[in-house]
């Protein structure tokens, strides 16, 4: 791939609080490439918002560097930084629209900031409202719009200055599931049509599943894992990833039996393999946990089974599964 549009190098961020200094991010390294939809996922308080705010320098890193389009943000003058921010749109959980301006004037706002003349700005704003599917709401005020419509206006506004990157901080967290799906579809469409790189911050797995190409998992100030969505779904390496992908796994207790995790990475369907194995070995297995998902028409996910007591059978079962081309690992204290 070409040179990354965003490159984060050894970024750390601490805040001074009355209770002393707290470290929110610690040694973050990330590269986000042109045209991709990159997810950053983590639990509440993990430091996701702080991380995006460091990408456009709303928050200055305590140490480390942020490069945008090859430029070290710390080296820019204030004026240059303002101009650079115009190539990074941002949308928020709470939409953050100007409540005293109409939808159209909200979309015009960043253009006013950039010094675009009024006529050009209005024309552009109208086109963008059309792009996000709200051509008839130009003269409505935000208070007259639904949450989904407000986020669409916010998206149009963020795109007004033709940014190279769109930063989305929990952009769908205040929306209901069906509206979430619509907004995500819109983002995907924008990514394709305008070739805007999108950075999606979320705590919801389904958002990542639905639109991201690659994802970074952020956990206790660090990046726990980074990779393509398929990879991480198929073989979550970090505890954090497993917790996020398979939260129910936690509730299962083990009784000292041998267990194994079978990972489906899109090459085979889950049901027949287990069923075939049971038929072949004439002994049942206990399914402790199963979570498979359908991504792009392929099965991903994992099943954890409790192996039979008899030594030989258990080993042969593992061999059998491996021969089927599945990733199998024995797990002890599983998640």
């Amino acid at each position, binding site marked *: 791939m070409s040179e990354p549009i965003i490159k984060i190098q050894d970024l750390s961020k601490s805040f001074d609080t009355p209770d002393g200094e707290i470290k929110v991010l610690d040694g973050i390294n990330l590269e986000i490439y042109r045209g991709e939809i990159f997810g950053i996922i983590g639990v509440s308080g993990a430091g996701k918002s702080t991380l995006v705010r460091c990408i*456009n320098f*709303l928050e200055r890193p305590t140490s480390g560097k942020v490069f945008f389009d090859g430029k070290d943000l710390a080296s820019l003058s204030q004026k240059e*930084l*303002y*101009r*650079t*921010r*115009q190539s*990074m*749109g*941002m949308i*928020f959980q*709470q939409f*953050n*629209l*100007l*409540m*005293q*301006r109409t939808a159209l004037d909200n979309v015009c*706002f*960043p253009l*006013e*900031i*950039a010094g675009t003349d009024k006529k050009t700005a209005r024309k552009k704003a109208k086109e963008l409202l059309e792009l996000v599917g709200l051509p008839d709401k130009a003269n409505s*005020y935000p*208070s007259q719009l639904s949450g989904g419509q407000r986020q669409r206006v*916010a998206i149009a506004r963020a795109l007004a*200055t033709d940014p190279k990157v769109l*930063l989305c901080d929990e952009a769908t967290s205040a929306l209901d599931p069906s509206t979430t799906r619509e907004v995500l579809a819109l983002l995907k469409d924008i990514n394709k049509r305008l070739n805007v790189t999108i950075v999606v911050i979320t705590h919801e797995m389904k958002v990542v599943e639905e639109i991201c190409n690659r994802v970074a998992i952020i956990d206790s100030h660090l990046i726990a894992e980074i990779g393509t969505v398929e990879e991480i779904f198929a073989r979550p390496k970090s505890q954090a990833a497993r917790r996020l992908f398979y939260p129910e796994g936690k509730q299962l207790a083990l009784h000292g039996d041998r267990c194994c995790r079978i990972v489906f990475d899109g090459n085979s369907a889950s049901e027949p393999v287990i069923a075939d194995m049971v038929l072949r070995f004439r002994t049942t297995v206990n399914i402790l946990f199963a979570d498979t998902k359908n991504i792009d028409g392929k099965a991903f996910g994992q099943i954890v089974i409790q192996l039979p007591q008899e030594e030989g059978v258990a080993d042969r079962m593992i061999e059998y599964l491996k021969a089927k081309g599945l990733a199998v690992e024995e797990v002890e204290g599983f998640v």
Partner: protein
Amino acid sequence: MFDPVIVKMLAEGFLETLYMTFVSSAVAYLLGLPLGIVLVVTDKGGIRPIPWLNWFLGVVINLLRSVPFLILLITVIPITRFITGTTLGSTATIVPLVIAAAPFIARLVESSLKEVDKGVIEAAQSMGASPLQIVFKVMLPEARPSLIVGSAIAVTTILSYSAMTGFVGGGGLGDIAIRYGYYRYQTGIMLITVVLLVIIVQVLQELGMKLAKISDKRN
């Protein structure tokens, strides 16, 4: 009581009161509005924190606000004479009114601007808006309804202060009330001035609320 002389005097007093109130309010806003903006912008959570300036302005404002108006009225007489050349009449009254009202207005403006959603300011920053652009394109317009309500409060407060200046020969309805009602026991005239003052306050207050409501696009 409906002696044309008295009616004329009341009418003049009425106009004088309006003159004092509006001119003082305008000048006080000229000082108080920027002061309020600076207070919000330089605050530690503001868009351009300057702690020492914020602290200094806060102290000055609190000092001025803690002096009772009647005492301020007398203390600033030398300043009044310096600026207006006189210490009597409605124009002279404008000086102490402005000195008393400007810090009050600064606080009103400050609290209105602080109501503006932090997220909206953050959004503007993310688009590369400068602090000046944020003040004029985000904070002031977004706070408009609240600023209008604040101005109704400011104007009616200045009006009631202006009536107090009657004690030092300040002119207007307050002056009439004190000269006739207090020194000459002409209760009738005093009551009429009171009624007129009440009417002005009511009208201004209502007007402010209506304007604020019309201008607010949040509902």
